[in-house]
């Protein structure tokens, strides 16, 4: 991975970003954070609806139709800006424990979000009348929200990967 990261850092898009480092990287990072805001706002509203703490004038399906597309759009925005950050600073991103744990959690939470929206569409009545009231489902909502929170925290910790000590590949260079 280190070799790959070093090779990537010699490619022309990467060199371009490195040479315009002073504004390109902060700008991409800022757009990435705007994307996180859209994603977090969206999943947060869906979780609050499942918990019964907000949006109770709307059905579960209405809530996911409102926020689902924004969640997907936000995730695409994050994917594009995220790839640009990896291209711009490959070693800083790829040779970290935080980055890979974050990617694993992104995969898990995206699958949960997609699975939830698909089953809700297929079994709308079951969800609206029964499942949404189950404590296990509410617990799962809280757990998934905590995964999204961890994703944000790990994203910022990429800049501080040394805090993981020997878990960080950067310390084994």
């Amino acid at each position: 991975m280190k070799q790959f990261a070093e090779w990537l850092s010699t490619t022309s898009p990467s060199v371009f970003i490195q040479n315009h480092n002073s504004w390109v990287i902060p700008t991409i990072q800022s757009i990435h954070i705007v994307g996180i805001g859209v994603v977090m706002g969206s999943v947060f509203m869906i979780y609050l609806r499942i918990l019964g703490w907000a949006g109770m004038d709307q059905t579960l399906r209405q809530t996911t139709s409102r926020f689902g597309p924004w969640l997907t759009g936000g995730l695409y925005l994050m994917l594009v800006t995220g790839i640009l950050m990896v291209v711009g600073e490959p070693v800083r991103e790829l040779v970290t424990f935080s980055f890979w744990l974050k990617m694993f959690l992104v995969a898990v939470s995206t699958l949960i979000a997609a699975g939830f929206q698909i089953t809700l569409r297929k079994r709308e009545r079951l969800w609206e009348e029964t499942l949404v009231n189950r404590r296990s489902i509410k617990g799962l909502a809280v757990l998934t929200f905590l995964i999204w929170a961890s994703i944000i925290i790990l994203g910022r910790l990429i800049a501080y990967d040394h805090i993981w000590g020997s878990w960080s590949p950067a310390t084994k260079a």
Partner: protein
Amino acid sequence: MKIAAFLEWLAASGLAARIRDSKYLFPLLESTHVFGLALVFGTIAIIDLRLLGIASTQRSFQRMASDILKWTWAAFALTALTGSLMFITNAPVYYHNFYFRTKMLLLALSGINMLVFELTAGRTIHGWDRAPSPPRAGKAVAALSLAMWISIIFMGRMIGFTTSRAAVAAPPPAGVNFDDFLQGTPNDSGGPTTTPHNK
């Protein structure tokens, strides 16, 4: 000047030293700050998009505001707390930083923007609560709010690129040139005393 002495006192406080000397505290404060601001921005954007007539247009504005804004304030409290704790670790430097000052100014302006809303479109809320398209003053406030919050995020990020950590008690482990990974560019002029951080 009194403010200079106050900033020095903040940075010299036991709490500031505790955060500076810890390997974990500053990174955790900063990550929690980003978590909080994601919720602040995300929930404000939901309200602003409703005011602009772009999303949630079928819902009562008041209902949405009472559902959502308490969470916005809770998340804002979290970012203010974590932000203040980061500020005190290097108060004089942050205080003089252009991006920090612009960010504080924009935060104040978005507060004023909220007041403007209360005094204009907010007064006639019963007339448009369920209208898909709120009055023009409401739309203007919402557009300004979105623009200011996106700028606040950018300014916040720029602070990390234009300040240096005051003191690093625990340098990166020997054998690793971690700061080279962070910078990786020829314009790195950071000497041994100015460890670049929070990028």
